């Protein structure tokens, strides 16, 4: 990635003397969610229904990638490994990734992406609002910046969901179907795993379950305006992302993301 950013990292002593922070695992989950979703969103470039959407989704991906890039070196500093952004992004196997299943799913059609973007952005708005009060200054700084951006992402997704839901019979049907398909992956966003409990106790993070009501309220308002309905809770729901257990698409995503870096170790360009 960036030469000057990695230079800064290599200036730091490799075996950083800073004590290992127990909340590092929580931050890995935050960063992995946005990096993996950035990778998925970037796939829309040249594939979106119109060129403006190529640029919109590419720009949203870039904002999320920026969040991840700011968090990874910080995690490498607090977990004592001194790892940089490339180490996290390019050198970890599937079991070391802590993102939720929602963001790793294949992109589907445009309505599927707008359903996912609506939920994920609504979640990010609640999350970044809460993280703005983090006791970790880096986390709070990243959140203050990210909040402005994810609000705009939410606005963009909301516009599309309303346009498609309250559009033609065909667009309404497909937008509703997209809401149904994304449903099983939502509960995982709000699970309080061990890492998030530790982080919340320290005032660094926030309990995911505490974000749920605000997210559901925001999405419900958009769904209602779009003349759509929120699906019933699904019988099956995704689990395991925060523990490194992923679904089938994740391996393929990592293969595409990492293959150059792993085939040519230490390559620069």
């Amino acid at each position, binding site marked *: 990635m960036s030469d000057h950013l990695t230079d800064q990292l290599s200036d730091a002593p490799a075996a950083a003397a800073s004590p290992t922070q127990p909340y590092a695992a929580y931050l890995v989950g935050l960063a992995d969610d946005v990096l993996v979703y950035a990778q998925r969103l970037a796939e829309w470039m040249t594939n979106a229904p119109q060129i403006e959407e190529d640029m919109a989704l590419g720009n949203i991906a870039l904002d999320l990638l920026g969040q991840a890039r700011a968090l990874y070196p910080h995690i490498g500093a607090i977990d004592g490994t001194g790892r940089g952004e490339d180490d996290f992004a390019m050198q970890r196997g599937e079991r070391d990734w802590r993102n939720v299943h929602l963001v790793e799913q294949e992109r589907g059609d445009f309505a599927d992406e707008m359903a996912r973007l609506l939920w994920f952005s609504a979640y990010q708005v609640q999350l970044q609002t809460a993280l703005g009060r983090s006791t970790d200054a880096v986390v709070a700084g990243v959140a*203050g910046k990210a909040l402005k951006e994810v609000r705009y992402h939410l606005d963009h997704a909301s516009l599309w969901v309303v346009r498609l839901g309250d559009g033609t019979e065909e667009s309404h049907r497909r937008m509703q179907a997209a809401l149904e398909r994304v449903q099983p992956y939502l509960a995982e966003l709000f699970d309080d795993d061990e890492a998030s409990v530790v982080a919340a106790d320290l005032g660094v993070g926030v309990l995911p379950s505490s974000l749920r009501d605000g997210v559901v309220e925001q999405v419900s308002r958009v769904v209602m305006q779009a003349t759509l309905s929120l699906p019933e809770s699904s019988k099956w729901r995704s689990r395991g992302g925060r523990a490194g257990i992923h679904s089938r698409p994740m391996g393929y995503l990592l293969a595409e993301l990492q293959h150059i870096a792993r085939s040519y170790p230490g390559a620069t360009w």
Partner: protein
Amino acid sequence: MAVDSAVAQAISRIPDPEVPVVSIADLGILRSVEVDEQAHTVAVTITPTYSGCPAMEAIASRIAFEADLQGYAAEIRTQLSPAWTTDWMTDDGREALRRFGIAPPGAVGQGESRGPVPVGISRHVVTCPHCGSADTTEISHFGSTACKALRRCNACLEPFDEFKAI
């Protein structure tokens, strides 16, 4: 910001790589320049407009280059907090944007970032940088870079970029 020394002036005049009619100082990207005349070093703090702004690397390497030309070693720090806002843009910067054909950002609304996000095409008034008409509509939420949206003037019919207020 101390711009009394030649090296500080050279750095503050560096154009933005994406919008070269404005300097990084005018955009509010350049936060501070501290010159150490004894050690011949300069500590420069910059802040990104957007989290993933790809221009940051080009800006950092240009700062190092300009400092080197003046015989200084640059130490560049990237600062995220407080988060960049278009309110930091200078009046000169805004006027340069307008002349270039980009509508400058309006003031960031106090309390805009409170409460639920309303749904709908943004209704704020953006003046056409070409003819001055206030009758313009948004074509796309996102323009050619993360910091811009795409609009069209209903009076002169020209499309134009709007620098989004954040």
